């Protein structure tokens, strides 16, 4: 139970899809002019992530991973099909989006009307494929956790687009320098929000020194080279994206 809660908050705040790894930025920037449409797209993203991440987890577990085929018989145990994961994941996502669209249209026309136009857009939203790829990279151990990861990272994305849409509605009445209007100021605000979200990094590990001693040392080394002073503020929670960004041996 505890790991579920931890993953939930971690995916929403610390590894936020938009602010920590920049996933789904295209639709985040394009559809955030009004709060109402932003809510529609955000809800659709939560929905599709909640469906595709567990599905791709099953694919990864029973088809793609090294040794995943051993349920077919011992002679298949050596196969490693993980190089196929991109194509299978994206095929699952594209198919699921189509299916979801058909099902929702049939059973809930009201929901379809509010999500309708966004569903096809979502097949090529990086947040969706990113959710599956991060699920694979982080080796999420169980189906329940994969579902949790899908839902919570969707909620994180939802929060981000809701916040920026609300800010953009307000900023329309502000006197922004002309060349920055529209896109430029949105980028900079997102950057500032991202810096704000970084402060959540300390949320889960406050005082828990024994949590990840190995990771801690590697981060300390990297950080030492790059930003000596800020060392104390960074904890192992930042590893996930620090590794992506600032591995510098």
């Amino acid at each position, binding site marked *: 139970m505890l790991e579920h809660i931890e993953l939930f908050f971690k995916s929403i705040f610390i590894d936020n899809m938009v602010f920590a790894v920049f996933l789904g930025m295209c639709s985040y920037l394009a559809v955030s002019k009004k709060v109402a449409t932003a809510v529609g797209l955000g809800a659709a993203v939560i929905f599709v992530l909640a469906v595709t991440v567990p599905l791709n987890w099953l694919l990864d577990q029973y088809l793609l991973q090294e040794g995943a085929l051993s349920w077919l018989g011992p002679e298949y145990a050596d196969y490693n099909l993980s190089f196929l994961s991109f194509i299978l994941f*994206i095929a699952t996502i594209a198919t699921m989006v189509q299916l979801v669209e058909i099902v929702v249209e049939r059973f809930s026309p009201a929901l379809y009307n509010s999500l309708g136009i966004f569903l096809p857009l979502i097949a090529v939203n990086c947040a969706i494929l990113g959710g599956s790829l991060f699920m694979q990279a982080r080796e999420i151990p169980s189906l329940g956790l994969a579902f949790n990861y899908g839902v919570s990272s969707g909620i994180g994305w939802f929060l981000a687009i809701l916040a920026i849409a609300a800010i953009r509605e307000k900023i329309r009445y502000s006197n922004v320098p002309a060349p920055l209007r529209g896109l430029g100021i949105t980028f900079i605000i997102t950057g500032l929000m991202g810096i704000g979200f970084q402060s959540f990094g300390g949320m889960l590990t406050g005082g828990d020194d024994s949590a990840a001693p190995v990771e801690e040392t590697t981060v300390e080394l990297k950080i030492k080279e790059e930003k000596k002073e800020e060392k104390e503020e960074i904890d192992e929670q930042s590893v996930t994206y620090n590794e*992506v960004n600032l591995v510098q041996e």
Partner: protein
Amino acid sequence: MALLSKKDANLILDPLADNNPITIQVLGICSALAITAELKASVVMALSVIFVLGVGNVVISLIRNIIPSKIRIIVQLIVVATLVIVVDQVLKAFAYELSKTLAVFVGLIITNCIIMGRFEAFALGNGPWKSFLDGIGNALGYGVILIIVGFFRELLGSGTLFGIKVLGDPIAKTGVYAFGYENNGFMIIPPAALIVVGIIIWVQRSRNRALIEEN
């Protein structure tokens, strides 16, 4: 440019500045920003996208008349995914360390909106040679922004370029560090990439007023 007619040359040159995919068309930001903390990763990412978009555009353009329009999205996704697998395997074979840095972001080239955007907007309606030029041009426009962002973030954040200490040694206090200069750790964290792109947009739009948006 003697090889290319003026129209063809514009296909390549337009996306570099006035129709830049990132700063003007707002495409392909997703996989771009997270890997720009280092110049090397930015260059590799740019090259990968040039390859995928150049080849992908040609393939889509060649089969554009036989794709049923209802399933074209899936066909396009399969073409991109195949090319990206090739890139990923090549990186893993020849630049393993770098492929670790780029991690899932190579896979995310598949959903890079530039690629689908160019397939939809150009390759489905034009011949292979034009599509090839358009693909290369847009990927270059994307790469230019990536490299500019990577250059500033690595230089200001770590004082290095391609991993070489161009500003002197921060620990031994040589070069500019001898005068009390410090690396700006802020440039390394992910949100800095957004702010750098915001500033690029600002500079570009101040130089070319026609690009300014209505609020």
